[in-house]
């Protein structure tokens, strides 16, 4: 007699287990969609031009004004000061953190003696684990006074101080991703370079670093995303004044800090509330795009390069 094929023996509880596990596994995916829908939903009146404040109807065109004064007799919802603020702080943070983190990663992955590697790993993990509010507090109390005295600044809290504090939060990300990329390079690459008579630093600078470019680019993008969206550090260390100025040493207010500072005091459902959610949509879209680019283009290119198909 023929035995039944193993696949035909249907077990109900196995089937149910798999399906319920699959359903729960989709929670992350579902919530990404929900996040997009619900922060967009709260900013919808603004997009449709139906948001209401004391004066009248508010639409997207009001975001083009040059000043941000949402709580006044004639409210202004210009995003320009906030965007400029975010760009200034992020630029300082990334321009400082990127070289430091890349060089440190180069050091630990190629030059460093064993003991230095052993110290560096936990140090980076500790730095990554320091809550951003603690870094913000450190910047507010120590860093701000230090920079004001040493650089003779007019304002204690400004874009530069905030950016430097922010770089402390960005360094671990850039370092970790870059070091992974450097360590993932095939050993043969190093050996070939040594065999051709190149020294250690020549190998590091002219062979390893170029070969790891996609990974380092990914590190840059992820660091940029983190810096742009970080809230607590900039909320505490940038002075929080929505000025439109070109100087790095003026107080600024970033997009994320604006949400953090004003959402608690806003009237639910009015134009100001809608605008804050709209800023949230912008932050979401920006970080989503950076992630997607880092994920798809960069990683795939890196894989191809290692396999020798690119």
């Amino acid at each position, binding site marked *: 007699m023929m035995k039944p094929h193993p696949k035909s023996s249907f*077990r109900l509880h*196995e089937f149910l*287990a798999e399906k319920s*596990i*699959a359903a*729960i596994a*989709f*929670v*992350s*995916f579902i*919530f*990404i969609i*929900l*996040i997009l829908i*619900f922060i967009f*939903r*709260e900013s919808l009146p603004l997009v449709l031009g139906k948001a209401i404040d004391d004066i009248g109807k508010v639409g997207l065109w009001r975001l083009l004004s040059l000043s941000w004064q949402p709580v006044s007799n004639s409210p202004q919802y210009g995003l320009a000061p906030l965007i400029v603020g975010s760009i200034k702080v992020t630029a300082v943070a990334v321009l400082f953190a990127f070289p*430091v*983190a890349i*060089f*440190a990663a180069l*050091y630990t992955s190629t*030059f*460093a003696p064993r003991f*230095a590697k052993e*110290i*560096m790993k*936990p*140090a980076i993990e500790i*730095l990554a*684990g*320091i*809550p*951003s509010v*603690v*870094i*913000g*507090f450190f910047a507010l*109390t120590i860093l701000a006074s230090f920079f004001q005295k040493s650089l003779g600044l007019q304002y204690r809290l400004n874009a530069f101080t905030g950016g430097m504090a922010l770089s402390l939060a960005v360094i671990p990300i850039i370092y970790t991703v870059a070091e992974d990329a450097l360590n993932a390079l095939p050993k043969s690459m190093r050996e070939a370079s040594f065999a051709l008579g190149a*020294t250690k*630093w*020549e190998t590091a600078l002219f062979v390893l670093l170029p070969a790891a470019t996609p990974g380092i680019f990914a590190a840059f993008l*992820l660091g940029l*995303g*983190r810096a742009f*969206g*970080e*809230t*607590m550090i900039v909320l505490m260390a940038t002075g929080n004044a929505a000025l439109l100025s070109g100087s790095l040493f003026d107080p600024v207010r970033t997009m*994320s800090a604006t*949400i*953090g500072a004003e*959402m608690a005091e806003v009237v*639910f459902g009015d134009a100001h509330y809608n605008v804050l*959610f709209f800023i*949230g949509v912008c932050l*979401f879209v920006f*970080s989503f795009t*950076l*992630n997607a680019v880092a994920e798809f283009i960069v990683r795939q290119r890196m894989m191809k390069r290692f396999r020798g198909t690119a």
Partner: protein
Amino acid sequence: MKLGKKIFGNAIVSFTGLCAFAIIGVVIFIMITIIIGGHSKMSWGFLTKMPTEGMTAGGIFPAIVGTFFLVIIMSIVGVPVGTITAIYLSEYVKEGSIIGKTIRFAVNTLAGIPSIVFGLFGLGFFIQFVGVNLDKLVSTPGQLVWGQPCILWASLTMALLTLPVVIVSVEEAIKNVPKELREASLALGATKWETIIRIVLPNSITGILTGCILAVSRGAGEVAPILFTGAAYFLPHLPTKLSDQFMELGYHVYIMSTQSTNVEETKGIQYATTLVLLLLTFCLNFSAIYLRYWMRKRAIT
């Protein structure tokens, strides 16, 4: 020429080393300044007393309790979901399949979303949508119970934020379970589900614990998501129900150092609160690092 090249080479090596040690130096400097600023104020009383005299004296007991409840509720929700997602990704999904890639992409995206956006989501979804509609169903009309900031919504928001942390570390642990164990179990006639429950999960319990600790550490340190989903400046009593607001350590540091009326007078409290928060995350991270190290060592031997 040769000498010049050698000097240049040495300069490069030294410079990269300088960058690395500068990072280590900054980490040590931050820890030392916070310890120096906060140690004198630290006492048993500071940890176990309520704030007094308009927050300028007394302890931070309610903030500690609030943080504790926040991370507990967060873990109860987040760790099972994260663990199950990790099981699905490593046991059920085929390498390179569309479903696996989609979920992985979602997890990575979730990890990259700014924490303030989670706060907005908590407000827009949990409070304004779930909470408000829940009130229409269960509360007396006109009364706000769930449609306002509270510890439940803050915890759920935080659970979502820390989900990727749990998933990544549980997945690593599951991968460390030797394939032979699974095959032996299947060969003895156990089904896939039985193998997962009896073999895979018990062998990756350390990883689940690590994920839980890392999530708690992250959750205890994040402030932006709870700014408007439940944290309060001062409450005379501890939270007793899920619909209560709560005080939290990180929020306490933020509010005391920026919004309080007498920032200078409360410097000691600010430093000491920061120190408590720093020590808490530091201990959690270190136990996670140690557990992971132990797990990897066991996987090799």
